[in-house]
């Protein structure tokens, strides 16, 4: 038996707070977990800056990746195995893709990618097909195997059922992160009966469908997604931290481009600033490294960088007011910018509108001109129906617009009347803050 079919002498198990145990029997999976690229995920938090709002949210992308692997393992070994639509030869491919699907995430992914115009999915691809420990292991399975794993994650693999296991509107990725994020944030939303969902899943040529009898379990899953988005992922305090983080990175980049001499030289950032980041540079960057710089930059001479880093490290976040970008509000925003400048507070860094569309977590939507595959229910007579046509609950919340904009500002600076007292008073009035 070759490497691809090699089993460990004894099954290894990882204790996991969400799935109780994560079971590993395949040598390939065990070896992949031990690679330095996979271990790096310990130093990337699953929820980025959310720990500044929900202090328990310190869980890593590594634990999420193991969770996704475990869910896919249960689906293929316990539910799909033996069914005619399932190809057993795609088992290892599915497990590897599940385990490695988030491999390319950078530190505080969202802001980091926005500022430096990067895409973690491209780095995931590069890690899998490039000169890495992960690639060496995958190559031992087969010459084309790394490419196939990369294609599944990029959703360009020909076998759509395999792709749908880790990337569809009801996939192992979401099933794990909803439960894991709920557990670690401590919120009471996000829970649903995953065991039931897995039991009623059935493979079809292009995707898995859910037996009609499991519709209520799917409703629960959709509701938990909906609640988690608004209660956790879009939390205004987390967004405040995200705004400050983004501004730190913008400021550091701006300073580098203007020839500023850093007291703490940002060696790890140079290739990012230049837009010439290599895979080696990228893999050296994690949240421990980034937080080290933020702490060091608290001592910088540049007042803005120093202040923003101090805010982030010590959780002195911006406050916010609701903002509806109507034309009158846009005029008010322009007026505020002018007053901020007069008060000596740079509005480019200290007056920020954040929109919910800046954080693209996807809501359940029924099919839209075939862009996204909806969730399908398998009825007792064999007919397949889109979920929202059968479920009134899902129909009530699917594809419904709910947008949200907030205007962030440093309340402490505006209340400091040691300088520019009158201008700050005008600003507070415009922001409708009490004195």
């Amino acid at each position, binding site marked *: 038996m070759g490497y691809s079919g090699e089993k460990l002498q004894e099954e290894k198990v990882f204790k996991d707070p969400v799935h109780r145990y994560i079971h590993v029997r395949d040598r390939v999976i065990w070896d992949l977990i031990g690679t330095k690229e996979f271990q790096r995920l310990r130093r990337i938090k699953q929820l980025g800056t959310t720990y500044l709002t929900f202090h328990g949210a310190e869980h890593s992308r590594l634990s999420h990746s193991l969770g996704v692997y475990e869910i896919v393992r249960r689906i293929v070994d316990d539910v799909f195995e033996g069914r005619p639509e399932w190809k057993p030869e795609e088992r290892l491919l599915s497990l590897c893709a599940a385990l490695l699907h988030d491999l390319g995430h950078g530190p505080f992914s969202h802001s980091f*990618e*926005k500022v430096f*115009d990067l*895409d973690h*999915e491209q780095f995931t691809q590069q890690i899998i097909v490039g000169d890495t420990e992960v690639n060496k292991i995958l190559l031992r399975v087969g010459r084309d195997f790394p490419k196939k794993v990369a294609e599944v994650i*990029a*959703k*360009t693999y*020909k076998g*759509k059922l395999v792709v749908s296991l880790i990337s569809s509107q009801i996939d192992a990725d979401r099933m794990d992160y909803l439960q894991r994020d709920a557990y670690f944030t401590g919120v009471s939303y996000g829970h649903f009966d995953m065991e039931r969902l897995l039991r009623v899943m059935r493979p079809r040529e*292009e995707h898995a469908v859910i037996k009609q009898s499991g519709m209520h379990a799917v409703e629960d899953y959709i509701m938990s997604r909906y609640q988690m988005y608004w209660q956790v992922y879009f939390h205004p305090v987390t967004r405040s931290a995200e705004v400050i983080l983004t501004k730190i990175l913008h400021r550091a980049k701006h300073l580098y481009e203007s020839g500023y001499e850093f007291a703490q030289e940002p060696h790890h950032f140079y290739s990012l600033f230049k837009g010439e980041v290599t895979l080696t540079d990228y893999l050296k960057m994690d949240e421990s490294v980034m937080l080290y710089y933020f702490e060091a930059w608290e001592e910088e001479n540049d007042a803005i960088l120093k202040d923003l880093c101090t805010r982030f490290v010590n959780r002195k976040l911006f406050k916010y007011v609701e903002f*509806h*970008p*109507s*034309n009158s509000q*846009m005029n008010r*925003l*322009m007026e505020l910018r002018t007053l901020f400048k007069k008060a000596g507070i740079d509005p480019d860094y200290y007056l*920020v*509108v954040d*929109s*919910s*569309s800046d954080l*693209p977590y*996807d809501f359940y*939507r029924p*099919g*839209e*001109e*075939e*862009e*996204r*595959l909806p969730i399908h229910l398998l009825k007792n007579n064999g007919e397949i129906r889109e979920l929202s046509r059968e479920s009134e609950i899902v129909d009530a919340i699917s594809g419904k*617009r709910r*947008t949200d904009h907030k205007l962030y500002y440093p309340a402490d600076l505006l209340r400091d009347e040691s300088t520019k007292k009158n201008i700050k008073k005008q600003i507070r009035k415009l922001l409708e803050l009490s004195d």
Partner: protein
Amino acid sequence: MFKDHANIINAISTAGEISGRKKLQKIVYIAKKLSFPFHEKFQFHFYGPYSEELTLRIEELCEMGYLNEVREKKAGYYQYCYSITDAGQDFLSIQEVEMPALEACLQDMNEQNARFLELVSTVLYFDTLEKEEVTEKIFTLKSKQKYTLEEIDEAYEYIEQLKTKAKPN
């Protein structure tokens, strides 16, 4: 601030009206690949490059009253048409959007059908691969669309035409 929103409004304003979400997604994706400054992130979904971020932004712009969305019933599905509103025009007038070469590209793309734009966007998605491999991908991933070799050649030619139009004078 609101630069990304303004870029999308500007694109729809320049095109006049865009019929269909799929068409809108493909137009923005192709424009982005031509190096116009659209920052929405696209991923390959079952039917080609798709941006959840763009979907959310469009929803937001409709809710803000800057875009008008009209739902039309087609055979078996609904099609959504987008155009700019007066409030959107006002909003755009206070934003600085400078993309002079975009107009010719957008108008040209808007004259194409969604099926062809889907092919063009897929070719661009795999632009690091050799043409032979791209063709194979299209036949495998988009087998239901039944694209022909001639259509794939046309898509390549079309991309070259667009690149010429996108070049600043």
